[in-house]
């Protein structure tokens, strides 16, 4: 029975069990659940197979009965955003899933992102073929040949063909990144820590949920989320965010978005299994030459102690609108309390000198 007298780390700053920051394996245990609590669950979103169909957005809104994005559903409020196929814009009180669309262009003449096994670059077959030009004609070093895919669209053959060549000197390569963003259900959740009413709490599944009957709309959690997930609903006052379908979990069902996702870009499961699967998937992609693939939120040593919902991205996080190095604000809280204490002492000190000083003068 740990008592408050243990002068919680928030003030003292000594935090041996990483209760404020750093890896915390048993996040439910720290939140007071008995040892037989279920395993921590979460999402692994593999954006390399996301087809941007937004089934997750609709399934989530349909299950949680969310209002239209501007919550008053008037027609003239919705409009084309001009941001490729993303007309949702961002996560918020009425959009707990948001699919981002990033159209990218590159003038370097390398082939499309291949996901299949590296096509073995063997010597071109038989003369009969007007087959693909031999690899060395493209100025690839011998050792690079094996890892590099045969350059399908080489610059010379294209220059006189494609009008874009006139402008850019080499054919244009298009890549269309899609990713379904969601609440990260952090190990150290900034929103949960700062909530003064206890509306935000850690569930027995290790997820972070807002209790709608408690939240008084103080709004403190909104700026405290390093990913900008949670938000206040305009005409309701309370804050809302993804609950990882807490009610469905109690019925043993997968969350609505993971159920609907056609290509299983969104995978739900025990967090440790998901992490293993993600590592394997990353290794496969790297082997296939997808250099820019990386995991985001999987690492326990990151700023939020690892996320309950982590991602496999194909470019820098900020390209998707994600912070590159998010750190939960609670990490610096002890330093803040100390500074505040010093400030308070300063005021008392100044007041003391002011009062004593003028008494002697009189």
């Amino acid at each position, binding site marked *: 029975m740990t008592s408050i007298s243990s002068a919680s780390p928030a003030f003292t700053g000594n935090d041996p069990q990483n209760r404020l920051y750093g890896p915390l394996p048993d996040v439910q245990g720290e939140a007071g659940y008995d040892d037989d609590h279920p395993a921590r669950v979460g999402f692994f979103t593999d954006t390399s197979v996301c087809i941007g169909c937004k089934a997750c957005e609709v399934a989530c809104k349909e299950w949680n009965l969310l209002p239209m994005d501007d919550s008053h559903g008037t027609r003239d409020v919705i409009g084309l955003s001009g941001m490729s196929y993303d007309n949702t814009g961002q996560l918020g009180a009425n959009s707990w899933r948001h699919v981002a669309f990033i159209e*990218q262009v590159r003038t370097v003449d390398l082939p499309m992102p291949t996901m299949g096994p590296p096509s073995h670059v063997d010597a071109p077959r038989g003369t009969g073929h007007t087959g693909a030009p031999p690899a060395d004609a493209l100025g690839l070093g011998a050792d690079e040949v094996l890892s590099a895919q045969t350059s399908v669209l080489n610059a010379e053959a294209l220059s006189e063909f494609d009008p874009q060549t006139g402008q850019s000197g080499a054919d244009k390569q298009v890549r269309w990144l899609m990713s379904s963003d969601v609440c990260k259900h952090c190990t150290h959740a900034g929103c949960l820590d700062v909530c003064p009413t206890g509306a935000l709490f850690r569930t027995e599944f290790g997820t972070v949920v807002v209790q709608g009957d408690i939240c008084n709309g103080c709004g403190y959690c909104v700026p405290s989320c390093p990913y900008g997930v949670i938000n206040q609903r305009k005409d309701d006052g309370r804050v809302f965010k993804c609950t990882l379908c807490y009610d469905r979990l109690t019925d043993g069902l997968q969350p609505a978005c993971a159920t609907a996702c056609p290509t299983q870009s969104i995978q739900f499961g025990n967090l440790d299994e998901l992490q293993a699967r993600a590592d394997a998937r990353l290794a496969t992609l790297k082997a296939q030459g997808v250099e820019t693939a990386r995991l985001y939120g999987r690492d326990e040593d990151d700023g939020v102690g690892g996320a309950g919902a982590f991602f496999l991205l194909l470019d820098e996080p900020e390209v998707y609108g994600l912070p590159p190095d998010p750190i939960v604000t609670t990490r*610096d809280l002890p330093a803040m309390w100390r500074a505040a204490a010093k*400030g308070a002492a300063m005021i008392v000190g100044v007041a003391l000198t002011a*009062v004593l000083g003028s008494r002697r003068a009189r």
Partner: protein
Amino acid sequence: MTEGLTTPGAGWRRADGPPAQQRQKRRRRGNGRRGGEVPMVDEAEFTSYYGRPIIKPPVWKTPDVPLYLFLGGAAGSSAILGALSDLSGGPQLTRVARLVAGGGSIASVGFLIHDLGRPERFLHMLRVIKPTSPLSVGTYILSPFSAAAGATAAVELLGWFPRLKRFGGIVSGVFGGPMATYTAVLLANTAVPSWHAFHTKLPFVFGGSAMAAGGGICMALTPLSESAPARKMAIIGAGIELVAVHGVENDESVVSEPYHVGRAGRFMRAAKACSAAGLGLAVLGGRTRVGATVSGALLAAGSLLTRFGVFDAGMASARDPKYTVIPQRERIKAREDAGSITR
């Protein structure tokens, strides 16, 4: 996706035109006192998702919250002043300080509740005590403080249970300090770049600002005979506020930029002007009736404008992804240079 030959990030760039939000170099006009251009940090190129904010700007309403910060600060410092002057015998100053503290605290509670999304549930604040939440800790500062300060002020006015006044004054004095500086932790303990980055300096900004406000108001309202302590506190407070604000504004990181540009910049410049003027006037003419009132008012105004300025700067830094991405990129680079952990 692409292998071998490409640079990290593989040279992909946003399809519609050049990298989004290539900030041009912005020349920052030096503020009043120091001429010449203050060099901006050189513009690091950064990408974002169509320029949209990465974190959510706070949903706190203006003017509610800045007023809450100002009144809380003024009430806190006045309460301390009142308690000490009561002990050291300055009846009129004590009375004024207590009234300011009482009025300030009640008003700040009012603004806090008005800013809530569901005001009728303000008692839910007392459901839990969460050391990790400055607002929860703040509630357990604000409640006793405003009760004590309010009671003392009421007693002061109605004249009942005179002995209680001292006890109430001391209680509110004890909570006065934390009352003034906990609000700094409230702002700093968020992901808002321009607040969080200065989490060690904001308490002193708010502390100084509280003293300037409390001292200034008490100085203005107390007869000259007893206003000396208030004047001293106001002067020292304003001095600390100016120094601390300067420390915040001139940090070499990009997150101090919001304190100079836009509405926040105007607030901060006005605040510094008022505080400096107030400070000068308090030092020179603080002993004259007119000088005391005018300098008191100026100092209070300076403090209020500082609160608005800090508030707006934070909001601006939340709305522009640049202030989130660039510092974090620099942090990663620093970590990589130090070779500690690689991405």
